[in-house]
């Protein structure tokens, strides 16, 4: 039994996050006993300074009559969750420089790539917790499960980033997915969230099944689930069964990353889920799914013959990327709901990310493509969490009645909330890929990598579709700044401290990554070393 401290240290971020989740669940148990159903309005006695700041009377949200039994005060959970996310972020960043090692008998790896992925996931979680805090409080929907599930899913994502065994990948994938399914079903006002969760669950399970089938075929062909052994089998010539396995594995993850034609669930799910969850999903799930895709394709099928040959996966990925960019951008144009628009935009961004994946196929050095992918994921994460953070603030009132958002809610936002308006515009500009924001630098690195990998048509298509994307991103900016207000009370002005912090964080990151990409490039460089040959 080879099992030592280095193994545990390797999965430290995942351990921290799951311990946090278990801690929250356990605290929920004692919550009942210690403070059973406090009568009155404001909930329990605030204990921490942060809670005292937030312990103002909640706005007159519907339903809760003063005589009704108020559930125990659960606001500490957001802060605990954020603390554990920060701890995970610290753990992954602290290990960044350590040498890459295989842990747990080669079922996982602790390397720069995994640590960057873990850092991005933990950062997304931290920001999302802050965004969710005020949102859930305003909707009076704070329950222990929310943050616990978010932490669980993040720990699954961290594991996905470092798994090098198909079984570990599958289990971590399910840890992540199950938690995210439940998060998207968390808030049930009206029918849309239920529909969203149902679609997500059914299609997600379908994708998992396809992945599992691929894993089974890979096992059948190589008698091992380790990616290393698959790579070894490929070097020995490979077999038809292995090609089928590769195709099924890619398709399974194409569902998860929402590549066209496996994107059907995205708009409904992004629209129906609570906005903070959507932000988390768009940022972190994408990171984890792409990280795993890269691990499988480069770790297991990384041989140039496997990638570029007649049956190579590069062709598949190129087609997926092209389709995804075109369809995502085209379908985003007619959307009236900002959430749906962002959903289609996330499909389009999956296309740009797939360009980076396609660029990794070649025999040329992959540093640019992998570094670009990671940079893109980080910048997209920061941007999209910020964007959905603003949507969450706008959505608070709408969500109570179970209605979806509409561009008209955004009209004249600049007059009511200049700061929010500025933030939203910044995020839209970044998503559109206009300098000096992170989005521009990200697209630049990815397309540059595509060009150097001799995928010029794909890069050109990417630039063209990005230009097309300007229309719907800037339309939001136009509504925010140039349209007269139609719904004067569309924004809830309370409990914005935490969300404000998160938005400031996102904005700073977006600008910083846009202005000084070099600071992040060195981090990415470390991560890239793993897959170099």
């Amino acid at each position, binding site marked *: 039994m080879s099992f030592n401290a280095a193994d545990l240290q390797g999965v430290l971020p995942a351990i921290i996050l799951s311990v946090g989740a278990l801690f929250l669940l*356990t605290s929920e148990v004692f919550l009942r006993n210690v403070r059973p159903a406090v009568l009155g309005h404001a909930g329990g006695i605030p204990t921490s300074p942060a809670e005292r700041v937030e312990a103002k009377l909640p706005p007159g949200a519907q339903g809760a009559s003063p005589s009704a039994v108020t559930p125990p005060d659960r606001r500490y959970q957001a802060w605990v969750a954020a603390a554990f996310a920060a701890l995970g972020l610290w753990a992954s960043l602290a290990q960044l420089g350590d040498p890459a090692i295989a842990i747990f008998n080669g079922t996982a790896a602790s390397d720069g790539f995994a640590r960057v992925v873990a850092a991005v996931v933990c950062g997304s979680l931290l920001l999302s917790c802050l965004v969710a805090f005020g949102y859930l409080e305003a909707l009076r929907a704070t329950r222990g499960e929310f943050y616990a599930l978010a932490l669980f899913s993040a720990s699954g994502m961290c594991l996905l980033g470092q798994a090098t065994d198909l079984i570990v990948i599958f289990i971590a994938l399910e840890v992540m997915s199950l938690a995210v399914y439940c998060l998207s079903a968390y808030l049930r006002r009206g029918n849309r969230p239920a529909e969203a969760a149902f679609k997500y669950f059914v299609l997600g399970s379908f994708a998992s099944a396809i992945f599992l089938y691929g894993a089974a075929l890979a096992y059948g062909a190589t008698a091992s689930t380790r990616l290393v052994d698959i790579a070894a089998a490929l070097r020995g010539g490979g077999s038809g069964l292995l090609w089928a396995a590769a195709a099924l594995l890619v398709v399974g993850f194409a569902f998860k990353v929402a590549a066209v034609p496996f994107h059907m669930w995205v708009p409904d799910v992004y629209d129906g889920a609570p906005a903070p969850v959507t932000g988390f999903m768009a940022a972190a799930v994408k990171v984890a799914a792409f990280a795993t895709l890269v691990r499988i394709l480069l770790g297991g099928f990384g041989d140039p013959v496997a990638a570029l040959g007649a049956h190579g996966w590069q062709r598949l990925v190129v087609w997926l990327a092209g389709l995804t960019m075109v369809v995502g951008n085209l379908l985003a144009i007619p959307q009236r709901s900002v959430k749906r628009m962002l959903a289609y935009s996330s499909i389009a961004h999956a296309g740009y990310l797939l360009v980076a994946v396609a660029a990794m196929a070649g025999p040329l050095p992959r540093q640019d493509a992998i570094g670009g992918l990671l940079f893109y994921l980080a910048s997209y994460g920061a941007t999209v969490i910020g964007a959905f953070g603003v949507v969450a603030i706008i959505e608070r009132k709408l969500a109570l009645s179970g209605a979806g958002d509409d561009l008209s809610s955004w009209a004249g936002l600049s007059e009511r909330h200049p700061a929010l308006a500025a933030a939203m515009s910044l995020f839209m500009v970044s998503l559109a890929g206009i300098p000096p924001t992170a989005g521009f630098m990200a697209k630049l690195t990815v397309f540059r990598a595509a060009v150097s990998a001799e995928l010029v048509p794909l890069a050109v298509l990417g630039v063209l579709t990005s230009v097309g994307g300007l229309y719907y991103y800037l339309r939001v900016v136009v509504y925010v700044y140039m349209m007269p207000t139609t719904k004067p009370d569309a924004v809830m002005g309370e409990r914005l401290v935490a969300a404000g912090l998160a938005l400031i964080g996102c904005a700073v990151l977006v600008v910083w990554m846009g202005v000084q990409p070099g600071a992040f490039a060195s981090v990415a460089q470390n991560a890239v070393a793993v897959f170099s040959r």
Partner: protein
Amino acid sequence: MPFHFANVLVFAAIAILFVLGSLVGGHFLRPHNPTAEKEMIYECGEKPIGQAWYNFNPRFYLIALVFVIFEVEIAFMYPVASVYRSFIEKGQGMLAFLEIFVFVAILAVGLAYVWAMGDLEWVKGLKQDVLKAAREAREQPRKAA
């Protein structure tokens, strides 16, 4: 080993033949003259109203779900339990114990959580009704007065 499982197959086949044989054999011994009354569903002599296939209480579903999860847990525990002794004899008992312990502890948190959330309560619906009825009974004389 295949021999052992062939036995299972044979046992299943013989069990089916046992039922089939006694039913077919009984066919020649028993009377058979069904009437509409005899073929009616038995509801203590009353005429049955409608079908019995209607929607069921979701708490059965929750119990079944929790059951599936713990059944899977048992399925994982048995292989590990069966080699626990050999690991102790190899002198790696502490490590083996920790592995089982972590596995069980994480699930125990889940069980404690379900318990604390009141989902193991079988009569929570009933309790609410009873409480409401009690409250109304208390209100009644006050209104009358």
